[in-house]
Each structure stands twice: as structure tokens, then as C-alpha cells.
């Protein structure tokens, strides 16, 4: 087409994905066993109906306002900005949500979907435990039976969240197969869903999995970016120059980025977990150092070996310790709309300490990756410019990990 690309048509490009086959360009899709295909079709039909239903949207909005505590503030971290130098840094305070992270935005949406579909039992996978806690929380609120699959290794690393889920009435099922982390928890949740597909709703915690999950999780998380955009205009009188968010599966990042995609002057940076460095195999940065493949129901960038086996990953933060990434991020990388970068374990830990000390805000280790990159980015920009960082979660859950690294025993 010869037509000039207006902002409307550009909006159209981003609004047109996924297509009816669940594709974001060549990524996404539905790579699952036949047993789940009709359940996915049903979920998509129900979701598309309810997405247009004002009563359902009202139900979600009420819970987001009165149960989660939205809108979350957009806070200018001026002392930190001064210390870093360069651009003004604003933090989108998802850590102040009920349960302490952005995960609850998605859980409320999916749990209400489950209730509309008459499902009595919900299952979820979790890595750090944040999505598991959010799911257990909403299950308690709606009176639904809840089982959470968690890799045995993560059960050990995140004992506090395991106990939290139990207090909330959920059953935590340790997964002993494979690498015993998030990817294996997702395999096991899929196996459970195949077995109990009639009465069970699977609440996937990130923008991965088979279509329609990457779409509906994105839609539920977009409240972050919609609020941030309006708050930026109201508080700073302008849109930000750049957005920064950490990317594991990528739900907090897509939630912040998506409502800004059509604003072509807003740069976006997704920060992957560099672990011990992308030059080693000890990281979790598929967009930076991986290749496209098929895992957990979608085609996306993966950490895989030459034989197509999925590799073990490493990150100091359990929530980023995942060998894949949401398919929309793979597409946004290929079309060049979002730049994907890395922060390693050490940089993230330094940023954790800095923000805690300078702003009195203790970030999650996942979030600390975004903060580490934001520091570098801000320093390269002018004081006339501004950055919004998604402060996706609070760091209480990570105190044990940080203490251990600092050589402190309780």
C-alpha cells in the first residue's frame, strides 16, 4: 500500500494483533495437544463476548478500584533521579497493589472469567510465587478451589510465598520433573488442565501460553499503561520519552508498553535477566541471546540448544527464571518497536539496594533489573527528559535471597 502511515494506521497495526489464529507476526499460535483445543476455543469465545460486555468490565473495574487499590500512583523518584543524573525518573507503583505486584490485575480478570464459565476449580503455575499468591488470593475472594503448581526448587527458594498460599487456602503442588522451576510448573499445570478440563480454569500468569492467553493477559494488564499515560499527561503535562520494564514472560512490560505503542516518540526498553552474563549460558534472556522455537503452546524466542531442547536458565530472581517470553514481545523485537536489553544479577542487586536506601522503596528483584537499566538510560539523557519505570512488585519476598547473598543469616 502506498498510503502514508498515519498515527491511526499505526494504531491499527498494534491493535490488529493477534490475528484470528492468535499470531503476532510469525509468533504465538496454539501449539497444544488436541485435548485442549476446544477448551481454548471456548475460552476465546467467552472472553471476546465478555470483553464487549459493560457489566463484566464494570465488575473488573470495581475490584481493581476497591480490592486492588487502583489506580496505582505514578511517583517521581526525585532523590534517585538526582543521584543518577540525567532524565527525571517516574515509578509506576504496581508494588502498592494488593498482594504487592502487578500480577493481581490479570488474576482478577481471569478469575471472573472462570466464574462466568461456571468453573469451580482454578489452577496456576508460579515461579517466584507472586502469581501463585495473587491467584490464591482471588480464589479466596471468590470461593474457588485453588491448586498452584510450583517447581520444587522454587518451593525451596520461596518458602514465605508457599506458606502465604497455604494460609489463603490454596494447595501448593511441588513439581519434581525437569529442572524443577517455572517452566516445569507450567508443564505440570497443562497436564492437570488436560486431565480436568471440564471443571477447571487454568489462570496463566504471564503473556505466554497458547492463544488466547497472550491476548487476554495483555488486555488485563493494560490498565497499567492506560493509567500511566493519563497520569503522565496530568502530572508532567507530557508523555514520557522512554518506558522501562523487566521481562520474564513479559506481562508487566506489555501492560505498560501496549497503550503507548502508537506513540512513536516514546522509546521502550524491555530488560531481560542477564544472570551471570549473556556470554555464559547462565542467564534467562531469550530475546537477547535466544532463537525462535515452540514451547508451552506458542512460537516465540527461546533459550534452546542445537537439538531444540529447552535449556536451563539462571536468574537471581525466580520470577524471571524462564526460558521463553510472551510472543508479542518476540514480534515487537523483530519489528523494532521495543528494544530488549539485559541487566545481570549484580546490577539488579545494586539497584535493589540503591532504590531501597535512596527512596525508601524496596523493589522486587525482578523489578530491580528494570531499575538497573533505567539508571544507565537516565544518565545518558538530559534533565528535560523523563522515563517511566514499571515498579512491578515489592521486594519483601526477596529479603531472604538478598540477605543470603550479603552473607547474613537470621
Amino acid at each position: 500500500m502506498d498510503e502514508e502511515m498515519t498515527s491511526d494506521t499505526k494504531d491499527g497495526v498494534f491493535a490488529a494483533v493477534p490475528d484470528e489464529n492468535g499470531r503476532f507476526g510469525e509468533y504465538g499460535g496454539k501449539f497444544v495437544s488436541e485435548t485442549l483445543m476446544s477448551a481454548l476455543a471456548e475460552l476465546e469465545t467467552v472472553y471476546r463476548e465478555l470483553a464487549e460486555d459493560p457489566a463484566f468490565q464494570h465488575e473488573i473495574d470495581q475490584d481493581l478500584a476497591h480490592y486492588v487499590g487502583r489506580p496505582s500512583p505514578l511517583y517521581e523518584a526525585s532523590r534517585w533521579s538526582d543521584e543518577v543524573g540525567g532524565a527525571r525518573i517516574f515509578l509506576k507503583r504496581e508494588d502498592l497493589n494488593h498482594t504487592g505486584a502487578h500480577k493481581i490485575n490479570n488474576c482478577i480478570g481471569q478469575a471472573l472469567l472462570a466464574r462466568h464459565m461456571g468453573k469451580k476449580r482454578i489452577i496456576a503455575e508460579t515461579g517466584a510465587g507472586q502469581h501463585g499468591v495473587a491467584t490464591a488470593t482471588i480464589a479466596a475472594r471468590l470461593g474457588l478451589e485453588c491448586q498452584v503448581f510450583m517447581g520444587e526448587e522454587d518451593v525451596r527458594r520461596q518458602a514465605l510465598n508457599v506458606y502465604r498460599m497455604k494460609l489463603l487456602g490454596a494447595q501448593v503442588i511441588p513439581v519434581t520433573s525437569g529442572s524443577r522451576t517455572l517452566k516445569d510448573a507450567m508443564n505440570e499445570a497443562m497436564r492437570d488442565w488436560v486431565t480436568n478440563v471440564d471443571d477447571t480454569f487454568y489462570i496463566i500468569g504471564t503473556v505466554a501460553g497458547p492463544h488466547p492467553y497472550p491476548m487476554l493477559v495483555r488486555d488485563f494488564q493494560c490498565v497499567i499503561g492506560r493509567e500511566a499515560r493519563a497520569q503522565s499527561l496530568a502530572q508532567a503535562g507530557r508523555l514520557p520519552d522512554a518506558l522501562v520494564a523487566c521481562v520474564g514472560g513479559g506481562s508487566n512490560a506489555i501492560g505498560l508498553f501496549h497503550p503507548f505503542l502508537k506513540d512513536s516518540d516514546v522509546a521502550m526498553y524491555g530488560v531481560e535477566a542477564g544472570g551471570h552474563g549473556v556470554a555464559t549460558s547462565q542467564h534467562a534472556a531469550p530475546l537477547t541471546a535466544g532463537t525462535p522455537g515452540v514451547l508451552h503452546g506458542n512460537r516465540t524466542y527461546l533459550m534452546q540448544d542445537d537439538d531444540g531442547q529447552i535449556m536451563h536458565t539462571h536468574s537471581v530472581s525466580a520470577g524471571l527464571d524462564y526460558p521463553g517470553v510472551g510472543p508479542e514481545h518476540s514480534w515487537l523485537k523483530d519489528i523494532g518497536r521495543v528494544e530488549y536489553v539485559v541487566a545481570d544479577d549484580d546490577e539488579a542487586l545494586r539497584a535493589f539496594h540503591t532504590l531501597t536506601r535512596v527512596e525508601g522503596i524496596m523493589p522486587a528483584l525482578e523489578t530491580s533489573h528494570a531499575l538497573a537499566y533505567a539508571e544507565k538510560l537516565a544518565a545518558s539523557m538530559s534533565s528535560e527528559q523523563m522515563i517511566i519505570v514499571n515498579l512491578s512488585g515489592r521486594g519483601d519476598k526477596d529479603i531472604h535471597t538478598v540477605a543470603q547473598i550479603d552473607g547474613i543469616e537470621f
Partner: protein
Amino acid sequence: MSKIAGRFRQLAEQGRKALIPYVVAGDPTLDATVPLMHRLVAAGADIIELGVPFSDPMAEGPVIQVAHERALAHGTSLRDALALVTEFRRDDSTTPLLLMGYTNPVERMGFAAFADAAAEAGVDALLTVDLPPEEVGLVNLELQRVGMDNIFLVAPTTPQQRIGRITGEASGFVYYVSLKGVTGAGNLDLDAVSAGVAAIRESTELPVAVGFGIKDAASARAVAAIADGVVVGSALVDCVAQAIACGGDQGSAIDAAGDLLQEIRQGIDSIAS
């Protein structure tokens, strides 16, 4: 006619049902796989289904999951699985051979390169668990190019109008998943299987084999009365693993699996033709 279609036609003429054992390439060792395949043919296998190990076998129950892990522990790759097929073909050029696995190793090798290598090795068909008809286009073109069959799953949850879409892409036979669940699960419901097989027969002339949840001669016999073929996987894989766990060597483990398959063969053949 493909080797698989030929085998089903031959069995139909004899009034017999196909017995299709599944084992994982490289489990318990690379050396054991080919002797095990030959032993299964001697015990009455009509088609061999060879599993390609994958790090994230989402559709498998615990028995086959650990078989994949054992095979991967000594690095068994898709290329190794194809090399095993080449070796098997040195002594057996007639038994149809089906590779069963997950999309990613095949995609990583490249669909065209895989089709060439698999045909060269003597593979007759591919079953990719996580590649429904919506996603199968490119793979099917390559399989057709080299004359390989593409085997698809139909599940108890598959609506009637969708069965036609699946059988429209399928060749060789249709694999009916007997239950909602993973491989090796125990909740086989024969009335439901019967209804499921009948629903498939409404939309295709292709033979129908049934798998998942068939563990012994009795369950195989019951399913063979309904379908054209019976797939046995977890029971065999577990038989080999148990024999080795009890201190047996590889040879005795292979014999144990052969003996089990022979019992199952007798069970299937005991139905009136």
C-alpha cells in the same frame, strides 16, 4: 500406498487388529533401543512408535516423562533417533515406523531437513503432539513431498465438526486419545472410547488406533474390539524401567518388555475376527 496404509489393509484382510508399541529413543540407553524394537516386532508389533525425547513433554504422564529424562541425560537428540531408525532398518525393512514427539526439535532441525533425513532413515510417519491442524501447514507439505504420513490425535473433547478438519489433514491412521489426561493415566471408559471411535468413522475411511491408558492384555483386548489398532506405551516403558530397577541387565529388561507385548498380542488376537 504408504507402508502404514498397507499394513492396516493387510491386517484388515486377515481380520486382525494392529498392535502399536511405543518406546522412547535412547531409553534406557542408546544401545538398548534397536534390540528392543526388534524384540517388540518378534513379540507381535505391527507398527513401531518411537518417541523422540524432549525436555518439556507436556502431554506425558510420569512414566514417560522420566523416560524422556533418562534419554536426555545421555544426550539423545532427534538426529540420534533417526540414526537408530537407520540401524533398525538394516535388519527390518518392512515394519512401519512412526516417530512421535514435540514440535520444537523438528522445527529446530528445519521441516525440510527433517523430512529428508527421516525419509532417508526409513521413517514412515510423524506424530507431533503439539501441532494441531491449525499449525501444521508447512510440516505437512514437507511430509507429503517425501511421502511420509502425518498422524493426528483426536481427543474425547474434539467436537464432531472439528474431526473432519483433522482427518482432512491426516493420513496413515487416526490416533484416538482414549481419555482426558496424560499418557499412562488410568481412567479408561470403554463406552466413551466406542462413541469416540464411531464419531471418527463418520468422517473418514482411515483406520483408527486408540492409545493412552491401555496397560495389559485385558484392556488391549477390550479396545481392539472397538478400534483398528491399539497403542501401548507407558506399560512397556515402565516394564523396562522396573526390570532395570530390580537389578536386571538390559537384555533381561528387553525380554520382559517382549513378554509383556506378547501377552497383549494374545489378548488382542483372542477377539473373534
